[in-house]
């Protein structure tokens, strides 16, 4: 899988989302590129790396947006405290960081809106509480992990099994590294190539219905349509193992992609899953243009870690 490549430089977003996210108004999209067949053009390489936390920390309750000065301080603080070169906190914490900072690529900036969380609705910036049903499912998962933590690969997480990364999407959420995406378009289709775990999501735009409810897929079943200048993608048919912050198989996910300028896509998603959450919730995560290439993350090719952790579990049973 090895590639040849020049060193690339991540483009840091300096572009404010023109207040559109905050105001909830759709930008006009005038003057932005269109494909030869007339669709709004979202194509290119994008990154959503940011150090803005997904949920608003309790310590910032009521503080929705940082001032420029606070944002600069936050960035400085975060880069220091999250620096994996730190060795403090005991050997468990040290091992938990895995390796030094050089291997991480989580971005250095808060989002252009300077919001204190990527979750924008509910207004408190927090994912709503789980329903009793979802709490039971979470408890059952925890019990299964306790009873059988590593008897076989199936006991381990989808990420460890190289099947699905919990932030790679859908919905697409920034993580520690590989926060890169390539969007390609053809008449009637949009394709999103995700670097993390190396998946391509093919989204038909022709109005066809979703797959029958018995067909369940790791990444769900996506259908798209244009709403003015915005690509709206609805995804259903998730498996009972796909888990976005406690979601269940019947999550209905709606993503909205709006190109607001040459270098920025306003990406928002709404999770509608009444079986799992006490209300629907929405996150807004700007995607900014980045230079290529996107690399293949062929996760299975050298997943020695799975063998090693199963061997470790066997050794500890002796």
């Amino acid at each position, binding site marked *: 899988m090895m590639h040849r490549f020049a060193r690339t*430089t991540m483009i840091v977003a300096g572009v404010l989302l023109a207040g559109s996210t905050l105001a909830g108004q759709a930008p006009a999209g005038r003057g932005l590129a269109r494909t030869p067949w007339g669709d709004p053009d979202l194509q290119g390489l994008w990154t959503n790396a940011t150090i803005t936390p997904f949920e608003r920390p309790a310590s910032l309750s009521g503080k929705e947006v940082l001032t420029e000065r606070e944002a600069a301080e936050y960035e400085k603080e975060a880069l220091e405290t999250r620096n994996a070169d730190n060795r403090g906190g005991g050997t*468990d914490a040290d091992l938990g960081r895995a390796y030094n900072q050089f291997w*991480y690529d989580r971005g250095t900036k808060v989002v252009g809106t300077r919001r204190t969380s990527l979750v924008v609705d509910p207004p408190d910036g927090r994912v709503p509480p789980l329903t009793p049903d979802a709490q039971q499912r979470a408890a059952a998962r925890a019990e299964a992990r306790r009873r059988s933590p590593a008897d076989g690969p199936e006991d381990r997480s989808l990420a460890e099994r190289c099947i699905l990364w919990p932030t790679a999407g859908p919905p697409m959420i920034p993580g520690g590294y590989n926060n890169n995406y390539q969007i390609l378009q053809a008449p009637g289709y949009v394709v999103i190539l995700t670097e993390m775990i190396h998946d391509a999501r093919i989204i038909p735009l022709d109005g066809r219905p979703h797959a029958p409810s018995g067909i369940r897929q790791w990444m769900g079943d996506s259908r798209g349509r244009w709403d003015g200048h915005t690509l709206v993608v609805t995804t259903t048919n998730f498996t009972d193992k796909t888990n976005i912050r406690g979601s269940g198989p019947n999550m209905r996910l709606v993503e909205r992609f709006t190109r607001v300028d040459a270098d920025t896509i306003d990406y928002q998603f709404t999770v509608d899953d009444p079986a799992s959450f006490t209300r629907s919730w929405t996150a807004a995560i700007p995607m900014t243009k980045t230079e290529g290439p996107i690399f293949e993350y*062929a996760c299975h090719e*050298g997943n*020695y*870690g799975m063998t090693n*952790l199963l061997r470790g579990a066997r050794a500890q049973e002796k």
Partner: protein
Amino acid sequence: MRTLISVLAALSVVGATVPVRAHHAFAAEFDAKKPIKLEGTVTRVEWINPHAWLHIDVKRSDGTIEKWMIEGGTPNTLFRRGVNKNSLPVGTVIIVDGYQAKDGTLKGNGRDITFPDGRKLFIGSTGTGAPGDPQAPPK
């Protein structure tokens, strides 16, 4: 009304609680009670996903050679920082600071990897604009 100072104090708490995360739980694979510090010679590097592995020969005091495998992170990030397969030639002497595999075999994680003179092997190049570089120039 919150003062700037109290907001910044709150931010400090936030940053400290955010975990970093590798592809899989290193705590499941390696033993925090078995720290290792090895000086060895690189014999092979596997630039593979999800994590790169360095192979080193470690000479023990009795003259015997132990063959260790050392786990790192995704090569993708390193590629973006300008590291390539020629960056760590066979024969390079490195010092690995990490933890040994739980099963007791000769595997460890490369928590920190340095050259014998103390320079870090994998370290960001400040000011180059590389990802994660705190001095990356704004666009």
